[in-house]
């Protein structure tokens, strides 16, 4: 019976260490059931450049933020949809860099999802009918990892591609700043 005691003691230890993680990699395949009532993503007025109080976070965010499966799917989509063509692995090129904390249209996951979904001036295409809402949110979750916004235990250190950025698990979280939209 003392064996039982010790077993449970160690089990409790392991539980303590792991419990925090169990919702972090929930795998789903049917798409999130949320969002039928809300439009696919916010309209451009989700940008609120430094004025008044921001609207509350889209309730769907919780399902994607910090979810390892969503981030991994987003990583793959980032590659498949050739986002690097303009954003160059997050480093920036024709499109803005995604590795810094500068967000012209907001750095919250719902704001990023809105940017992907609706497109933005100066070349960012609208992906609304090209990807499902689920995929757009997955992409948004991944984009946030590039500037260290997502929790480190949900992101992957690297993809199996050429490495030209430090591992995402080591990326220092960049404080979100409102970039000047007149910049470019």
């Amino acid at each position: 019976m003392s064996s039982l005691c010790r077993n449970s003691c160690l089990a409790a230890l392991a539980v303590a260490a792991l419990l925090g993680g169990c919702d972090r990699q929930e795998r789903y395949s049917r798409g999130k059931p949320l969002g039928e009532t809300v439009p696919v993503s916010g309209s451009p007025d989700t940008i609120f450049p430094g004025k008044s109080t921001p609207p509350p976070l889209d309730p769907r965010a919780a399902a994607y933020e910090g979810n390892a499966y969503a981030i991994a799917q987003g990583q793959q989509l980032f590659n498949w949809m050739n986002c690097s063509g303009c954003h160059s692995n997050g480093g920036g090129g024709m499109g803005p860099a995604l590795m810094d904390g500068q967000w012209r249209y907001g750095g919250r996951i719902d704001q990023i999802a809105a940017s992907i979904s609706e497109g933005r001036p100066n070349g960012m295409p609208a992906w609304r009918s090209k990807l499902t809402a689920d995929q757009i949110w997955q992409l948004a979750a991944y984009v946030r990892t590039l500037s260290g916004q997502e929790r480190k235990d949900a992101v992957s250190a690297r993809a199996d591609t050429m490495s030209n950025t430090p591992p995402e698990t080591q990326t220092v979280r960049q404080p979100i700043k409102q970039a000047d939209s007149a910049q470019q």
Partner: protein
Amino acid sequence: MTLPPTFTEDVAELPTHGFSYRSLTWWGVIGFMVIEGTAFVLTVAAYFFLMSHEESWAPRPWLPPNAIAGTLFTLVILASEFPNTVIKKAANAYDVATVRRLLPLMVAVGVVLLVIRGFEFNSLNVLWYDNAYGSIIWTLLLLHTTHIATDWVDTVVLWALMRTPHGEEPRRLVDTDENSLYWRFVWLAWLPIYLLIYWVPRFFR
């Protein structure tokens, strides 16, 4: 019932310690040296496996590591074998005074080596996530650093122990002898690693 005993030899006269292969812990030390040696050999095998994929090594445009810190480290660790041998011999001759006098020197050598090692990491000219070459170079250096660090802790503990009355037990001299043996393993393992980190990437570039 168990069988009744028939008494043969009396072993009360036997000594309570022995050096080298007569000691039980010596076999333990050898066992762990073999384990760690195997790990080094396999890491080196992985090094050559990855090297075989590259046309040049270090792969262009990466520069080979800067060898100054590594060479200094090698000289210091080779020099440390002199006090190490003196300690080992003293332990075998039950000369506690010499052991007590020289162990702090080995502790100091460990500190110096760890500091130089810090500079070595800084002179590799590649980061572990840059490419497979960087990964294996860092692994070799890190693997060896853990040996320096663990042996340093071991030596500190031994030094503290030898300063207590426990130091007068012959078995503690056996421990000292085995600590010196392990140090030999640490620097012997370093020599091929030194070549692989600093010189092979120069020759094959």
